[in-house]
């Protein structure tokens, strides 16, 4: 049986709006609709979609915070909303924009509190703490109150906090939001190692597609509350029918370039953008352009996954 098993999941919210003095209208909003997917132990899955697509609602249902309106849902063999506290022992959750740590306490005390909450055996606790503190380079921050930590330090603290009790599943909601490039890189490195060593299953929601490229073999794209793509990252590129772009800087301004196998997308003075299919080789296009035009410079842009997803969204809508 899969570790996470979601089938026909539904969640509607009742929204009350003010409609004039003392009058309110009541309407139903479907946040998640007929969502089905499953995740096996040890997978690293990117869960992506535009704002309001239903990502957070899904995570809330998976963690038992929110009761589904309909559909079936099993995580580690448990019913999340009914067996929430039991499930809590087996999962770790990181909400990127909010901390689970206590503002006024030193990081070390927050960890101590979590040790009590999860009843982590002493030896295990010390082993995990030492390891995560070393890997995430938190040694110097352990005695600093959380409110004085930088965003990156706090995030590393939050990730440590979510992992001290050896969860089987780690949910990460926007874990790299607001982090600098170096911190992002380190964090991704750490998560990859965690998955490799402990087979921790990762479900990651993010707006940063580099997170996905660095970490996830599998992507689930959700839009309007339902899954519009579920498969490999490479497959997502193909599905989007995306194209590569050849950027040509001509010596002088000229008419749109006309070569076989490519078409001009945009012209801006001497610079022109030519698109050609992802699966085609760039060499003949480049050769053809160079043979017929006075080229000052050339560069190739790989398809942007964001474009691919935007394509998916617009087609789904």
């Amino acid at each position, binding site marked *: 049986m899969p570790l996470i098993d979601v089938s026909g999941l539904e969640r509607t*919210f*009742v929204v009350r709006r003010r409609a004039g003095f003392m009058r309110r209208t009541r309407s139903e909003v479907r946040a998640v609709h007929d969502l089905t997917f499953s995740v096996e132990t040890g997978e690293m899955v990117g869960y992506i979609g535009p704002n309001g697509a239903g990502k957070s*609602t899904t995570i*809330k249902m998976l*963690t*038992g*915070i*929110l*009761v589904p309106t309909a559909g079936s849902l099993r995580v580690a063999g448990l019913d999340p*909303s009914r067996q*929430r*506290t*039991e499930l*809590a*022992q087996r*999962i770790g*959750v990181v*909400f990127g924009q*909010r901390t*689970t740590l*206590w503002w*006024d*306490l030193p990081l070390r*005390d927050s960890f*101590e*509190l979590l040790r*009590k*909450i*999860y*009843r982590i055996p002493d030896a295990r606790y010390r082993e995990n703490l030492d390891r995560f503190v070393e890997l995430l380079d938190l040694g110097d921050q352990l005695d600093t109150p959380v409110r004085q930590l930088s965003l990156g330090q706090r995030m590393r603290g939050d990730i440590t906090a979510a992992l001290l009790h050896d969860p089987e599943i780690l949910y990460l909601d926007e874990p790299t939001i607001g982090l600098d490039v170096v911190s992002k890189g380190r964090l991704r490195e750490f998560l990859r190692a965690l998955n490799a060593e402990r087979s921790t299953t990762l479900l990651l929601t993010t707006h940063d597609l580099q997170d996905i490229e660095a970490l996830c073999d599998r992507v689930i794209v959700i839009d309007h509350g339902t899954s519009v793509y579920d498969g490999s990252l490479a497959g997502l590129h193909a599905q989007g029918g995306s194209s590569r772009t050849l950027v040509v800087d001509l010596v002088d301004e000229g008419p749109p370039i006309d070569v076989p196998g490519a078409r001009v997308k945009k012209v801006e003075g001497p610079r022109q953008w030519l698109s050609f299919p992802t699966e085609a080789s760039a060499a003949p296009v480049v050769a053809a352009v160079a043979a017929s035009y006075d080229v000052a410079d050339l560069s190739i842009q790989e398809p942007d996954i964001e474009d691919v997803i935007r394509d998916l969204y617009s087609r789904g809508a």
Partner: protein
Amino acid sequence: MAETSTTSVTARLWHPVARYGDMVRLWVRAELSYPASFAMLVVGSMLINALDFAGIAIMFSSIDSLGGFGLREIALLYGATGVGIGIADTLIGSVERIGEFIRTGRLDQMLTKPVPLLVQVCSDRFTLRRLGRITQASVVMAWALPIVDWTPSRVLVALLMVVSSSALFFGLFVLFSCVQFWTSDASEFANAFTYGGNTLTQYPLTVFPRELAIALTVVLPIAFVNWYPCLYLLGRPDPFGFPEWLQFCSPLAAALVVAAALLVWRTGVRRYTSTGS
């Protein structure tokens, strides 16, 4: 089979209490790591509260009794309700801030932890700053104790009174904080009943109309915090002519209020997890 189920019931009751104790200890340790500021806080609140009772005492320089009760008798009432609310206010931790937790998403964090929500909220930011209040009320009460004609049953009623009044105020704090599950910015609402109730019960109920005494017995049962047990301790017949057995009902009233509070709390949490707001 029967044996396993008893163990699990004990474990189910014991586990939350043990976690509460664990977490509270850490908060106290953190608080005491700044001993000077902690001492100042406690002493400061003791002084402010001392003035509070001084006000009542000064009133007695121009009157001999209030509602038929002397100063020391009132000190007994005052002390009992003060100790009760002080202990309850300590035990509830951050319950009054539940609305803020909902708004900031802290509640979601707590719901992903393997400890009952109430235990987490009550231990969150646990502080001993009410120690000043408890100490002051205890001193006032101790000063009144010699006027009681002590018998074993009065000792028992006095002990039960302290436990019951703490539990009753605890229940009221939780009960009325639950309103925030429905309207998340009503944190002051609970205070009207808890601190309001505390202020009312600092005086003998005989200064109030009979209807209020009935309401404080049947509707919002804070008369059980101190009034009824104190009547028994002082050997006074009930001035309103209410039945005497009420004087032994404080533990029952406390149990009912706590049960109601836990029920409403559960309903509130369920509402939160089913509406997401």
